[in-house]
């Protein structure tokens, strides 16, 4: 064992006292790993399983249920740009914005720009509908987007 850094392991173990069993640390552990490594490699999954007294298949089962977590073939770029496509945003042109961002980055939804800076994904309602069309930069909202604002945002994130 030695794939995950000592620091990351300590952070995972620090979550244990919050819950009455070890399995409940699965999601916090997956978050910690993906935040740092931009994906959850198979080896990391095995080490999480060992720390939580689980089978790696149990960790994989949980991880793969949530489309949020990425395997090592599909790591996230430096920033995840999550563009809403649900009703309130769609009514104000969100799908056109998503299409525009994808074209600018030359990727399909879910893809990462060649420089590794931005992964653009569609999102279902992200709860920023009063500022539709809306997107998340990792986990912070950007509201009232327009084509110009999306272009400025992409430039900002590529710096």
């Amino acid at each position, binding site marked *: 064992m030695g794939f995950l850094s000592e620091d990351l392991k300590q952070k995972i173990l620090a979550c244990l006292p919050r819950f009455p069993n070890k399995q409940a640390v699965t999601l916090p552990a997956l978050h910690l790993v993906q935040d740092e490594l931009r994906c959850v490699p198979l080896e990391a999954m095995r080490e999480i399983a060992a720390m939580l007294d689980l089978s790696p298949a149990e960790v994989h089962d949980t991880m793969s249920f949530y489309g949020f977590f990425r395997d090592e073939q599909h790591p996230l770029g430096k920033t995840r740009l999550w563009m809403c496509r649900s009703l*309130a945003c769609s009514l104000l042109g969100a799908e056109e914005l998503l299409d525009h961002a994808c074209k600018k980055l030359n990727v399909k939804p879910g893809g990462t720009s060649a420089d590794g800076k931005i992964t653009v994904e569609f999102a279902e309602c992200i709860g920023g509908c009063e500022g539709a069309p809306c997107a998340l930069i990792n986990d912070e909202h950007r509201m009232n987007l327009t084509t110009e604002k999306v272009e400025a945002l992409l430039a900002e994130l590529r710096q």
Partner: protein
Amino acid sequence: MPEYEPVLLRRVGRPNSQSIDTYRADGGYRALEKAVAQLTPEQVVDQVKASGLRGRGGAGFPTGLKWTFLPKNHPGPIYLAVNGDESEPCTFNNRVLLEEDPHQFLEGVILAAYATRAWVAYIYLRYEYGRCYRTLEKAVAEAYAQGLLGRDILGKGFHLDVHLARGAGAYICGEETGLLESLEGKRAWPRVKPPFPAVEGAFRKPTVVNNIETLACVTHIIDRGVDWFKSMGVPPDPKNPRDPGSYGPKLYNISGHVNKPGTVELPLGVTVRELIDKYGGGVWKGRKAKGAIPGGISMGIMTEAEFDTPLDFNGPGKVGCLGLGTGAVTVFDEQTSIADVLYNITRFFSHESCGQCTPCREGTGWMMKMADRIRRGDGRLEDLKILEEIGNAIGIMPGTTICGLADGAGWPVKNAIKKFRPEFESLIRAGTKSTSLQLVSAH
């Protein structure tokens, strides 16, 4: 109606509204001090019961009654699981409450834990609400530092630990048992009920699941009293023996084709038309509305002619909608194609079905494909019948699925076909292609 003074939103926009000091200066934690000094846990439950408070998360179950379902004299632990998943499309009132006034909500958490004898509260937040998470993390630390959380709260021998848990982008984690599975580190497959969470919930222990706005209301029921809470809202409908009435304030979200989208707090029972015209600045571009979703997309669709329906727990049902839902109204104007609206809605449910029950997993996919076909101009008239059939066949109400996601997926489809049939028929007959964008790769 005289102008209503907001209570839940009264501190929004004040400087440092998130800090414990400003909260206490505004009278915060007074309700908690009063409760632990003067009321037994049972008396807190009784007050919440007497207030008529019903859950704000969508199902509208009476909160005090739910608390009484916990086993009596249980040795513990009992858990409180707070539902902060807020993923119902077009809904954002929990976000406003947490970002702007986390202590108002946290006081409700502590009161609920006192009433139910829960030792541990898990606050499950959707991952997308990063700012809520960080705001709440700070608020929890402040509350610990002031002896409002932890051991021997306010010196009254009552203990409570609060932990935050983050989701990972799945709508189904808002269904209460999906949430519990996710909290336990598993895939968020909803559980077959019974047993209900109050009997067997998180980690197989008795658990109360409540929504964020519900708990924020609890703070004010204890602070301002039952009579204050019952002084607003809509009394039980004599024609509906199952309606216990809709009392208290409610946060309404307004979005879509309106001039002034946002959140307003009003006594339960405002109409969709008032929300749009008086609080939402009217329909944009001087146009007329074609329709609206009344409380998140799961609740179905209202036509413009139905906009005088009051948004209380009982109102939307009178025009064939599923219920009040989250009180989130999204308006679409007369130029919007109903086929585009239906496609957007069906796509959501197809994407978010957890896949556990075949009727939901397959049915939501079929409905999306048919809606897509119609909007591409390739629909067939029989599709309308099949859409309606699927809409009627999936859900807990017909008894074919484990959770209510499927009922919510079927409802807008049934409403759309029933209420907008002439438009669908003419789109299909003319083979009209939608002019709005369709991202083929986006599903």
